[in-house]
């Protein structure tokens, strides 16, 4: 994988709320499992850095922005739906509704 194919991810959270904490853990776990060494994940606490929120189309928190590879996608929620998280990141071809083993 060339450096250009690296995943560029930004995760917007609000401090250490349970929802935000769950989202951070879930995203980190997936990245380590599937993209080890091939991703940049930036975690932005909008309470600490409110100005940065305008860089992306953020209304919901938590939101994970997959900026690269294209197409850009927004994943919102606490990332507890692992299938949708994988699908949204382009790491799964379809969302399997029942929990996969």
């Amino acid at each position, binding site marked *: 994988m060339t450096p250009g194919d690296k995943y560029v991810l930004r995760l*917007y959270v*609000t401090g250490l709320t349970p*929802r935000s904490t*769950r*989202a951070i853990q879930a995203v980190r776990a997936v990245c380590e499992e599937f993209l080890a060494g091939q991703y940049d994940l930036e975690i932005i606490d*909008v*309470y600490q850095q*409110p*100005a940065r*929120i*305008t860089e992306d*189309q*953020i*209304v*919901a*928190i*938590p*939101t*994970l922005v997959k900026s690269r590879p294209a*197409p*850009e*996608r*927004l*994943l*919102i*929620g*606490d*990332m*507890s*739906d692992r299938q*949708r*998280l994988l*699908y*949204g990141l382009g790491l799964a071809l379809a969302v399997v509704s029942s929990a996969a083993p």
Partner: protein
Amino acid sequence: MTKNKRDWNEIGKAPTGIPGLDDITYGGLPAGRPTLVSGGPGSGKTLLGVSFLVEGAQRFNEPGVLLSFEENADELAQDVRSLGYDLHKLCEEKKLLVDYIHVDRSEIEETGEYDLEGLFVRLEHAINEIGAKRVMLDTIETLFGGLKDTGILRAELRRLFRWLRDRKMTTVVTAERGENQFTRQGLEEYISDAVISLDHRVHEQISTRRIRVVKYRGSTHGTNEYPFLINRDGITVLPVTSLLLEHDASSERVSTGLPALDDMLAGRGYYRASTILMSGSAGTGKTTLSAHFVDAACARGEKCMYFLFEESPQQMIRNMKSAGIDLKRWVDKGLLTFHADRPNRHGLETHLLEMHHAVEMNDPDVVVVDPITNLMAVGTQTDVRSMLTRVIDFLKTRGVTALFTSLTSSSATLEHTEAMISSLMDTWVLVAFDTVEAQRTRHLFVLKSRGMPHSDTVVPFKITSQGFTLLPVPARSVRSKSRGPQTARRPK
């Protein structure tokens, strides 16, 4: 009870700066609270909101944040440039902040629980950045198209409006009208302070925009539907003038232009800043009589505006010349201005606004509308009446003496057709003719004239190359019909 009364007085108003809207809301939108502006596509919601922000920033020193879900800053700037608003400049001066949020469901994957804290942080950041006092959300319901979980959305929007109230932001929330409700998602449930509804209707091919204050908690407001216009000057809601009858009454008198007619009006003519109706069937000499009035006013050095809905100014000047009235000299001196227009070229409201404009630009002492009946053809009776009320109100407030001619189709309906407008008129002069022995004889009489003893004599007259000539009343004088005690009074 006492508490209620205090609340009533305590409600602060944030002026919108939109002419007319601040009149019907008695001062503006509820300060520090959200107002819902609802309407169909193209009804002017966004323009109203942007005007509220721009006027706030420019005139009331209240910077504003525009959170847009539909158009970006450049598109918005383009939209309102034709109204004379320069959004970019205001943004540079930190009086306005436009934040565009694009929410597209196809780009969004929902992976679990979330809230809209991002929206709050964004808004808070924008408000702090410029010290905003006003906020506009355009159109927040777009979020329903982008996010699936309407339960979360509703709860969060409720929280958002409460938050805006806590922050004392005067907020305009625009929303598309839904079926049987003001908004598609029932936002009116959450915004209970004030609701304004906009409407765009076409009646007999003439389109009219209307605005209505549906609800205004803790304040009186005009409850009617008011026409409004969007043109190069932005939004104007009619009435442009106040809803109250409070103009001064002048006791100064102005000549009718005919000493003999002055005599019939207690010897001194019309009251200044009063309204005069001149009615009669075709060819009775209404226009000539108006021209006499204008001629006399110009001779006193007063400025006149003549609104023509039937003839061109050139035709009018030529015709009056044949009756010995030289209007051209007043035009050349700049004392007389003609304003000719086809009645059916616009809706009534546009006519009204153009008249407003012309009167404001020229600041005349005398205004003639000839004939007012042609304007009546382009609107319904109620429309015409309400428009006339506004015109008259406006003219009276400015101290303008206004003369309206009215064309009646036949003498049988003479008094009937004008019933709707006659109450708005202070003086009513009727011109008519009789056919006696193959000879038409013209005559005029004063049907009413408020606040003065007037003649009740029917006076015959002729129009010659010297204009109107009132003839001596025949020995067996004819009394005017239909008037009560007032007609019994006679001039000295």
